[in-house]
């Protein structure tokens, strides 16, 4: 297979405008002859569906929640980046591009990242026009903050609910097109397969979650905007329903899956408190601007937050400040997370489980006063208290890293098309922009860039060339897909084993977290692989799925998703094993500098690892997209 990223010729800053000029357009009167399926209504999906419908295409939109407004994007807190340079602090499209490439540890494609930075400015204009109430200065202009260690203030935000407000903006645009009859909305509907006719993506098969009905939908192109796969780990900051199924089914139909092992572990989450725990809650990264991270110098088993107050300064180890004097508590996410793991592995972790470190605001409160801290973080402090019962104004918070985001995903070219003609992937479900580590406030930017400003152009080029014959869902390919899904469902329902779906999912999560999580080694990965295979076998023999297909059955929904997680987990492990280097969120213990920092191998691994499915239980084939850096110089990241 020859991978062609279709990067336009010419200088970096002219590629996108030239490309837009060169691509074919669909004549306005012809647009209504084309049907486009958009799966997912998060930032990436809603923005695409609304924009495509405005252009005149017929759009069919799908989500598994009861309303498009509830997609997981709603939960994003911190903000969205854009190279507006409103603060006149030296920001520019190039700087945002550079920061994103460097932050991704040089494992993303220059051309895509540059375009992302370029259109970032349009996003803010669009959102304001839709009525997104971004934070403002007293003079009435938009406010910014610096985020995730960036040296400029380019993050726009709406209190601690930026994702919510951006999504409600996109949802309102989508609602307008639903009312206009240009979008048909299918809620509580789960996509279970993509259908190829003559090698082109021509539709999907879904399950109606209320009636259980398996249905086929035809179209001229299919866009997947189905989010990330962090829930492979069972515990993550993702919503409970976030899943990999849509992307995974597409993968099994031929779409390459790129860099699956690149997962982001966020350093500031509320630690696990018991085996019943269902999800982990993120505490915004912004807390590290004022909070100091520490553990005791020598182990103090079970140290509680209220006891911590009495630990003397001499007995505390502010390990980030000690190891990284210039960045201190503001080192990037991957570095902060790994260091928390190191001190806990040394036995110096705190709290009942020993898997937590302190994030202490005592000094900040002493310096700035309680009111100032309250005005900055009041809602986060309240949330923390609500969950843990501890009051962070009086005792330090306890935090621990948790799975948060997945940089890997479906491989796409410059047009956001997968290697399957007519099948596109946008937002977190593609692999395109964040390399091996995503910077804060850039996922929201990417989702909206893809949906509002990229796909509406690039999809036209494909459609103009591919003709507008309708596909019949009576076609063999649809029947086959429907049948396979029905068999799969029957198999799960008839298994009648002895363990619940969650039992299995939790075990899978443990394997992944311990052996393919914050740090990995060839040895741990090989163990993980054997364990996943064994557990997957048990799953299909011993899972107990209560109920029937023909009514709302949330256990069945979970069972189907977990089935896919098992397969994806194995590929993540293979990918991690293949990448004999450490970069970004991927830390291989064998490859570190003398000081314990990630050691990249640009000679041998400056590529996107793209995996091709070869059939059940067959090893996947690796294809490499070599990354060519013409505009930035590869350097070792240093935050000392």
């Amino acid at each position: 297979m020859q991978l062609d990223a279709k990067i336009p010729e010419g200088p970096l800053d002219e590629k996108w405008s030239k490309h837009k000029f060169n691509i074919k357009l669909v004549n306005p009167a012809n647009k209504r002859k084309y049907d486009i399926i958009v799966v997912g209504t998060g930032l990436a999906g809603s923005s695409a569906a609304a924009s495509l419908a405005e252009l005149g295409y017929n759009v069919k939109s799908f989500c598994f929640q009861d309303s498009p407004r509830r997609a997981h994007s709603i939960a994003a807190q911190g903000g969205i980046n854009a190279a507006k340079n409103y603060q006149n602090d030296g920001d520019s499209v190039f700087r945002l591009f550079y920061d994103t490439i460097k932050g991704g540890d040089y494992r993303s494609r220059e051309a895509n990242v540059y375009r992302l930075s370029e259109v970032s400015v349009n996003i803010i204009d669009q959102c304001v026009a839709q009525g997104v109430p971004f934070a403002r200065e007293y003079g009435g202009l938009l406010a910014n903050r610096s985020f995730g260690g960036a040296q400029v203030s380019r993050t726009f935000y709406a209190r601690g609910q930026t994702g919510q407000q951006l999504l409600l903006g996109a949802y309102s645009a989508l609602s307008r097109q639903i009312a206009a009859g240009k979008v048909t909305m299918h809620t509580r509907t789960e996509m279970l397969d993509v259908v190829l006719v003559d090698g082109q993506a021509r539709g999907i098969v879904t399950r109606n979650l209320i009636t259980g009905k398996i249905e086929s939908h035809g179209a001229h192109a299919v866009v997947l905007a189905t989010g990330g796969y962090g829930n492979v780990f069972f515990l993550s900051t993702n919503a409970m329903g976030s899943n990999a199924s849509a992307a995974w089914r597409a993968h099994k139909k031929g779409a390459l899956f790129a860099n699956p092992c690149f997962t982001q572990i966020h350093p500031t989450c509320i630690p696990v408190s018991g085996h019943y725990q269902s999800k982990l809650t993120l505490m915004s990264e912004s807390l590290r601007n004022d909070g100091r991270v520490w553990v005791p110098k020598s182990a103090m088993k079970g140290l509680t937050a209220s006891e911590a107050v009495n630990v003397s300064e001499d007995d505390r180890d502010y390990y980030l400040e000690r190891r990284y004097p210039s960045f201190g508590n503001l080192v990037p996410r991957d570095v902060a997370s790994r260091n928390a793991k190191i001190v806990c592995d040394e036995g110096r972790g705190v709290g009942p489980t020993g898997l937590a470190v302190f994030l202490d605001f005592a000094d900040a409160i002493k310096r700035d006063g309680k009111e100032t801290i309250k005005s900055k973080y009041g809602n986060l402090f309240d949330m923390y208290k609500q969950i843990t019962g501890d009051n962070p104004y009086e005792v330090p918070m306890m935090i621990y890293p948790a799975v948060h985001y997945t940089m890997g995903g479906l491989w796409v070219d410059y047009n956001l098309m997968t290697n399957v003609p007519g099948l596109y992937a946008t937002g977190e479900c593609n692999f395109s922009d964040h390399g091996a580590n995503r910077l804060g406030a850039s996922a929201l930017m990417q989702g909206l860039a893809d949906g509002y400003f990229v796909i509406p152009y690039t999809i036209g080029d494909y459609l103009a060339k591919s003709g507008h014959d309708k596909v019949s869902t009576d076609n063999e390919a649809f029947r086959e897909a429907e049948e396979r899904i029905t068999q799969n469902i029957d198999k799960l329902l008839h298994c009648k084993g002895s363990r619940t779906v969650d039992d299995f999912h939790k075990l899978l999560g443990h394997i992944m977290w311990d052996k393919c999580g914050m740090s990995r080694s060839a040895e741990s990965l090989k163990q993980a692989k054997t364990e996943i295979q064994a557990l997957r076998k048990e799953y299909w023999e011993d899972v107990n799925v209560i109920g029937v297909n023909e009514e709302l059955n949330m256990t069945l929904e979970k069972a189907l998703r977990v089935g896919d997680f098992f397969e994806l987990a194995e590929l993540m492990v293979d990918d991690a094993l293949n990448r004999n280097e450490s970069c970004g969120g991927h830390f291989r213990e064998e490859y570190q500098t003398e000081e314990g920092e990630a050691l990249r191998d640009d000679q041998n691994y400056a590529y996107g690892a793209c995996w091709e499915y070869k059939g059940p239980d067959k090893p996947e084939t690796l294809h490499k997209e070599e990354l060519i850096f013409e505009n930035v110089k590869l350097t070792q990241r240093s935050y000392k």
Partner: protein
Amino acid sequence: MDLTLKIWRQKNSQDYGGFKTYEVKDITPDTSFLEMMDILNDNLEKSNDDPVHFDHDCREGICGMCSMFINGRPHGPQQGITTCQLHMRSFKDGDMITIEPWRAKPFPVIKDLVVDRTAFDRIIQAGGFISVGTGGVPDANEIPIPARVSNEAMDAAQCIGCGACVAACKNASAMLFVAAKVSHLALLPQGEVESKERAEQMVEQMDEEGFGSCTNTGACSAECPKGISLEHIARLNREYYFAKQSSENLPVEDEVHGS
């Protein structure tokens, strides 16, 4: 702690439904309410019983999916939070907890505690947007908006569309939900242009969906997890009143919604 749960079970929208009683044991105070439900469901599944179905997704109080009527109050005993943010430290050993779905005609039960809230989406589709397409919009800083105004718009925009306001209201009115959107958009210069038509169309859709009328009891705002204030209802009434005066679409009647 050990608890007795009295939970509404209903197989599907046709089924009559009724309460069933369950016991859960050894629940720790740090457990969230929904995790307590997970534990119950785990027990049920292990004894081959149908688990209790309930809506949830983000589990951090922002998606608006969770929706339980707990001991006679939407989202339970604590003010200003959603069901998923409720923790078991709000209860004590031996408590009996009654759990029901939202009860309102426009929110029919789908199964157990899961209801159909698509009526809210249709209300938004009727006009809960600003009519701009993608592209061709002015620079974001072209129109300054006083921080006070954008803050107030943000207060209203925080609505998560959960429906607790409807569940709390004896008339099953959706006024607070509609008002939050009308107010959010009317306050901003970008949204002000269409604000009267918007109010008119959204209220019309609300009536069509079968929501009751507002008699100003304020139960909605008291139970709203996002603290959406009644002032927004006053603003909606204002917009609606002017819309009615200038409208060619609407039959002229008395104040439609009481206040």
